[in-house]
């Protein structure tokens, strides 16, 4: 009798151990493997300069993917983020070009606020169409993707929208190219956004609600959680993250066009899924998402540094990664 109880106890512990840890650890293990592989391919790869470069370039996708982590955790999906980047960036540059405020510093501050509000409103629109309009998020955001992209094309008249004022360009440049205590600004922003997001998702009532809604909306409703509000706010958080990505994107080139951010939604979703967040909702992994974004950028970087594989195959490789990630995720679920 005693031994059987012991065995059962051990069994329970082993099962929960497997269930909780493997899926969270898997993306980090993959990242380490990639780093080793990269070092073998090219010694320059593992240098601090190269890695900081990779991290900096992953900033846009990483920050957008943080927002996507909220949307996906609550059981929804946002396909419009790539188009939203182009739209918000265009609006922001047009606002700065309008010259309504003469002082460059003041103008920049206003433009930043403007972009943040615009991004949030775009997210709010997605959220309201999905929840109040009761349209599948896939369809709703497919629609707004077309709208945001189309409006961008119209605003730019098919060409590019470029930041004109050189004084503004000058003071805005460090937002992407500068560094704080030797760390490039985009990396600092990634870390800050991730920390805040992790705090919200794991340590606040709202975060708990997001996971509850994503894992079973009925249970959430019967527990008195305002399901539609939780989902809508997740879309607004996504819009905010897009706006933050735009704030880094605009000083980089000082210009946008109708093709800005094309397929970024797929990269963001890939990062989230590779990071271990379940696409059907109910489990969000913020740090995993960041890890996923790095993995995507690293793969591209390794391909560039190696001479075996053409870099034109990058899309195919990223597509393979998402499928492999899903397979691994499922096999880990099955074992538990």
């Amino acid at each position: 009798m005693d031994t059987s109880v012991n065995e059962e106890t051990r069994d329970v512990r082993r099962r929960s151990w497997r269930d909780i840890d493997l899926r969270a650890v898997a993306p980090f293990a993959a990242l380490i493997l990639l780093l080793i592989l990269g070092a073998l391919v090219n010694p320059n790869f593992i240098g601090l300069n190269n890695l900081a470069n990779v991290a900096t370039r992953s900033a846009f996708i990483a920050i957008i993917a943080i927002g996507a982590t909220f949307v996906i955790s609550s059981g929804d999906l946002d396909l419009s983020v790539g188009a939203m980047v182009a739209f918000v960036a265009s609006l922001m540059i047009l606002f700065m070009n309008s010259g309504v405020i003469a002082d460059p510093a003041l103008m920049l501050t206003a433009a930043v606020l403007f972009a943040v509000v615009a991004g949030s409103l775009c997210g709010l629109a997605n959220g309201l169409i999905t929840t109040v309009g009761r349209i599948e998020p896939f369809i709703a955001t497919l629609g707004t993707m077309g709208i945001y992209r189309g409006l961008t094309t119209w605003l730019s008249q098919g060409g590019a929208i470029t930041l004109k004022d050189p004084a503004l360009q000058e003071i805005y440049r460090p937002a992407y190219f500068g560094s704080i205590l030797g760390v490039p600004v985009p990396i600092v922003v990634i870390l800050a956004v991730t920390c805040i997001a992790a705090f919200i998702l794991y340590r606040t009532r709202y975060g708990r609600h997001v996971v509850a809604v994503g894992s079973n909306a009925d249970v959430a409703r019967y527990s008195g959680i305002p399901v539609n509000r939780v989902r809508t706010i997740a879309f607004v958080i996504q819009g905010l993250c897009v706006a933050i990505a735009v704030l880094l994107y605009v000083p980089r080139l000082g210009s946008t066009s109708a093709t800005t951010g094309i397929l970024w939604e797929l990269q963001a979703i890939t990062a989230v899924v590779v990071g271990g967040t379940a696409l059907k909702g109910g489990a969000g992994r913020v740090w995993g998402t960041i890890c996923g974004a790095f993995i995507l950028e690293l793969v591209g970087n390794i391909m560039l540094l190696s001479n075996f594989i053409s870099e034109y195959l990058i899309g195919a490789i990223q597509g393979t990664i998402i499928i492999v990630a899903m397979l691994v995720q499922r096999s880990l679920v099955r074992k538990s």
Partner: protein
Amino acid sequence: MSSQTSGAGDGAIVLSARRISKSFNGVQVLFGVDFDLRAGEIHALMGENGAGKSTLVKILSGFEQPTSGDIILDGHSVKLPPNGAAEALGIVIIHQEFNLAEHLTVTESLFLGREVTRFGVLDRKFMRSETRRVLDLLGSHVDENAMISSLSIADKQMVEIAKAISRDARVVFMDEPTAVLSREETNFLFKQVRKLRDQGTSFVFVSHKLDEVMELTDRVTVLRDGQWIKTSPTSILDGESIAQLMVGRELSKLYPAKREPNVDEEIVLSVDAVSTGYVKDVSFEVRKGEILGFSGMIGSGRTELMEAIAGLRSRASGEVVIHGEAVPSGDVHAANRRGLAYMTKDRKSKGLLLNSRMTANLTLQSLENHGKLGYLSPASEAQALERARRRFDIRVRDGNVVAGRMSGGNQQKLLLAKVMETEPEIIIIDEPTRGIDVGTKQQIYHFISALARDGRSIIVVSSEMPEVIGLCTRVAVMREGRIVGMLEGDEISEQEIMRYAAGLKKKAAA
């Protein structure tokens, strides 16, 4: 009407179970059960909820495989094919929950999966006339071209039975077939069953209705807590002795002593002429410290009514007043804030997050108690879990186990604990003990009783009559969306509730 036919049940054994055991996730629900079904007999399978009747039926019809033991068909040990493929062997089950696709016609349902064709084209005419023939045989007036979705629950039941009959079944399992039938429809059904029995078809009749078992069946097998207790000819038993075999213990021990609230006790909840969906014009009141029962058939509108009261469903009309304050329609928060909580009967799909741990489940409804400005304090949550585990005796070896891996009884205790975290004054408990073992049932009854003694008011909605009778000081009986009877004191009995629930008796709601 002759009740038993002598001579039936002398046929050869068609289907039998030999020392069948079954476990689900390490919880054993059947312990070496034996069961014989002879050709041309109607065999009643009886037992309390959770006794293992449904599991045995599922095993003997191939829907579940036994953990150990043998199934013997026509003298040979067999492994029955799963998912209803046993129909090909003449073993048919009429499900308690309907298994009909809502968007098909009656004819299409009857021939689903074995459509008759001529030259590769559906022979609709033949299928329609065949359906008509079977329905006429049953004395049913259901239109063979009607959509399933347009039928009443009773008619759907008839279609299920017609479906079984049309498949030339040798062994038919009927799980509570009369639960939703009127007396007249039941008579038709019984007549047809007897006729088929006399032609050699065997029936297994699962029912809680003792009078029907006495009237229809040839033999009775009683299960209790997953064990075989007795098999005997129906003619030498009476209702009392069957009940004794089923329960096997003093009922009084299972339920705590009742405590009537004082007549001048404050009325905490008053429901006035509420209508929603199927529910029509329901009014009642609950006093402080009272346990009010809601009984009635499945589908009589009890859950809809409770959800409307709790704000989970909006009301078409009517008022809900808590402590003298009206509650707006369809607003869960407003109802919660005024101290009313609803505990769902559907713990797996509406009550608990099966992939989350106990803590996340426990505090989900009451997160505002665990931190300020939306920030959550893990320590405070852990404390709440410790309290709840002690208070509701939630027994798990590993505190980090996800809810989906806990036993039904522990899940139910966790759900009760979760609802109680909101500190409600009025608690609506829908099916408090669905699918849990007797020991846990008893505990839950004592929790409910203790809450009432604490001055909280409780509404117990239950399809298990003994539960309502053993626990409540007043019982409302619902039928077709209305309260048709309000019983108090000595009036609360199985027969009396049944009379109201079946529509044989009516009186104005109190």
